[in-house]
């Protein structure tokens, strides 16, 4: 399950909440993110360097593309050769400078986490891997990397492995992309653009759209009119603002529902308290 969305939409929290829901349903789940940020582990209260169990059935892991490269080489090559390559500065420069390499290593690591028979010695299998995708380029870059590398390489081991990983990420039975949006104009536009890019570049449709941060819609049309005519005071002004904002959100939600080719679930704006637990319960209900 790949959770995508641009900055500021609550993607990381939704990824963590989805992981929590899956774990509570009895799935052995791991939430993975790309290193350099430790948002998920902060949200869930963990460290993230190793695969780590944060709650019953819920694990967390922070993917470090450089470490993923080392593991890949060790896995693929005889011990001597892997060391030669891993310690070659030329090779590490080449790897770092190759466009798309980071993305390929990230999705490769996700693929590994999702195997029943893990390549990492002594590692256990997971029922579900939730990837908190990088915000850049909607995460499509990560999903399309295996296909691109397979096409460029055509033959050889990378081409073969690229095709294997692509077969997983482009298979709707195995991979679901969840787009997180706020019910506002720009995030809705971005979600619709993501939907098209995903189909064009990976051949996949969105599995689920989460409209996050819905404000309560409290007033009926008649009540809103009564508020317009009511004597002016701070309380009434606050109610008018709240109504106007909730109405604008509803308009964007309708637009999203009209144009999204996937189910749109909503999550409420959480004013205070434990976001994660509340969102997990709401998701449980919505799903």
């Amino acid at each position, binding site marked *: 399950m790949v959770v995508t969305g641009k900055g*500021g939409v609550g993607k990381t929290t939704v990824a963590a909440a989805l992981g929590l829901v899956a774990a509570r349903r009895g799935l052995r789940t791991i939430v993975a993110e790309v290193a350099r940020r430790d948002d998920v582990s902060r949200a869930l209260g963990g460290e993230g360097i190793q695969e780590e169990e944060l709650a019953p059935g819920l694990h967390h892991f922070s993917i470090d593309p450089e470490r993923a490269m080392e593991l890949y080489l060790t896995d693929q090559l005889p011990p001597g050769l892997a060391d030669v390559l891993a310690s070659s500065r030329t090779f590490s420069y080449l790897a770092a400078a190759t466009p798309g390499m980071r993305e390929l290593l990230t999705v490769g690591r996700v693929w590994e986490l999702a195997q029943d028979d893990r390549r990492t010695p002594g590692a256990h299998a997971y029922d579900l891997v939730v990837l908190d995708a990088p915000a850049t380029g909607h995460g499509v870059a990560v999903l*399309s990397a295996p296909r691109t590398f397979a096409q460029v390489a055509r033959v050889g081991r990378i081409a073969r492995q690229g095709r294997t990983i692509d077969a997983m990420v482009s298979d709707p039975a195995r991979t679901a992309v969840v787009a997180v949006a706020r019910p506002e*104009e720009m995030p809705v536009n971005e979600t619709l653009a993501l939907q098209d890019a995903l189909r064009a570049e990976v051949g996949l449709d969105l599995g689920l759209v989460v409209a996050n941060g819905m404000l309560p819609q409290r007033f009926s049309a008649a009540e809103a009119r*009564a508020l317009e005519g009511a*004597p002016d005071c701070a*309380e009434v002004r606050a109610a008018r603002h709240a109504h106007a904002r909730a109405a604008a959100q509803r308009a964007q939600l309708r637009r999203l529902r009209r144009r999204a080719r996937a189910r749109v679930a909503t999550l409420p704006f959480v004013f205070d308290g434990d976001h994660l637990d509340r969102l997990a319960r709401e998701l449980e209900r919505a799903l």
Partner: protein
Amino acid sequence: MRARLEGKRIVICAGSGGVGKTTTSAALAMGLAAEGARVAVVTIDPARRLADALGVDELGNEPHLVDPERLVGHGIEVRGELWAMMLDAKRTFDELIERLAPDERSRDEVLSNRIYQQLSSAVAGSQEFTAVAKLYELDRSGLYDVLVLDTPPSRNALDFLDAPDRLTGFLEGRALRVFLAPTGLAARVVGRGTGVVFSVLKRLTGVDLLDDLGVFFRSLGGLLEGFKERAAGVKALLADERTTFIVITSPEHEPVEEAIFFAGKLRDAGMPFGGLVVNRFHPLDGGPPEADVDALTAALGDAKLAAKVARAYAEERTLAQRDQAALEHLRRETGEDDPIVIPQLDGDVHDVDGLVAIHRYLFAD
């Protein structure tokens, strides 16, 4: 804002995604143009409606003059010129290569390379670099008094600041030299290499991918001098005393932390931190701590409605308190005593009305 932008030529708006950076950048540019300057705003991926409202063509990758008639009806008189453009990162990079390539052959070699074509748009950081590269080019054109840059929606604004350095570092570092030396990797890759690294690599990647990579790096090498010069120019431009950075945030937790981080980074790097704009703020509206339900019931003549109003008011107060705390936190951590605070507007702000509303707060006397 007027005082902060006095004498500035380059205004760079930075901050996390989703905080109204594009609209704020456009409103800043509009305000400066209204006061008589020739201003170009360079934006990345703006809301469609804002682009339509300003008449910015998606294509072209060059600034378009915004017809002042579009703004007159909204009470904005543009005495100078307002230009706007949407950056096309891939196209900017292509143009850069066309300009820097020493000859047609190297140019075509890069542009037609499959690695470049298929993967260049996916490179993290290339959008940051192309944005400043475009800025540099517009600056050199001499057509504008002020340039306003809406930075890419990068989660980590640091990438943007480091972009020229990273590119120069890469170009001057061992990496390229290794690739480009007569006996370097590129030569071995495209030639008849027999080294251990090469043969192991070949085993992993297959010859096609390695060939393409070799050609990619080798042809990039032909552009080395041009790139270095450009990157140095961009770096000097960013550090110029007539350049200023405006940090934009919302009062929410993550953008606030990013804003604090970025302001600190600017200070560390000796870059000018020109001010802080806090969008989407919920101000305390001077009401009582708790709604008086009885008084509301009397005023509205509807007990049920009064209870709902009281709940909406309590939520609004919660947000106002959260935002006030965020503002104090920002003041303390960035050392900016007087941030410009823009309240949360009721509707979406991606049209001319929204632009004008933001402009009013930015340029209030």
